[in-house]
């Protein structure tokens, strides 16, 4: 299953709820303000890193770029995708759950 999250992890509990309910092997895509969760060295970095043990984390590149989050500021191992990659993730997973 693909999970999308669009809220800042510092302002909303959406990401936390998503990670609590996503099963091992899930794909998790960070979009819009949720891409701040991809940053290293923040108060939520360890939560995201620990989720990476069981799920694959993706972040939408146009949203990272809009927010000035370069690869040097990101947790390593997070995968970048464009809108085309977003579509591909929605195709390869059998369903999509949006955490808003």
């Amino acid at each position, binding site marked *: 299953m693909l999970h999308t999250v*669009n809220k*800042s992890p510092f302002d909303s509990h959406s990401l936390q709820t998503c990670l609590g309910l996503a099963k091992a092997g899930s794909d998790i895509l960070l979009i*819009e303000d949720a891409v*701040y969760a991809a940053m290293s*060295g923040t108060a939520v*970095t360890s939560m995201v890193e620990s989720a990476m043990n069981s799920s694959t984390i993706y972040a939408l590149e146009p949203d990272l*770029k809009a*927010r000035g989050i370069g690869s040097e500021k990101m947790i390593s191992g997070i995968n970048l995708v464009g809108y085309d990659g977003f579509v591909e993730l929605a195709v390869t997973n059998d369903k999509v759950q949006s955490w808003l």
Partner: protein
Amino acid sequence: MYVNRHAPHGTIYPLEGLEVALIGAAFDQDVSMAFIGDGVFQLTKGQDTADLGIKNCAPTYGALGDYEVTKLYVEQESLDERGLELNDLMNLTWEDEQEDWAEKPSIRLVSRAQLSDLLEQQDVILNF
């Protein structure tokens, strides 16, 4: 004082808040801005919204000094929580007429306690 608490681009609050600050300055109000929580992300360097097709409001912060908006208070605790430091923020300045147009930094790092004192001194506080 305008208190900015939202991350940029995800919602329009930062942009519409900036519009109020600029109008406030045009009305000769003593405008100061505070950035707390996700609001500090508004000031980060290197924002580029071209791929989103969204108007980028980040460069507008650079023009605030020209409108005599020279006090941008950024809460240190909010930066810390987000792994940011002053160097990650845009270099925003204003020119001090009193000192032969010397260029001075607009961003002032303050602690939560200092910001709390500042809020107490304001006539009107608007949140964006």
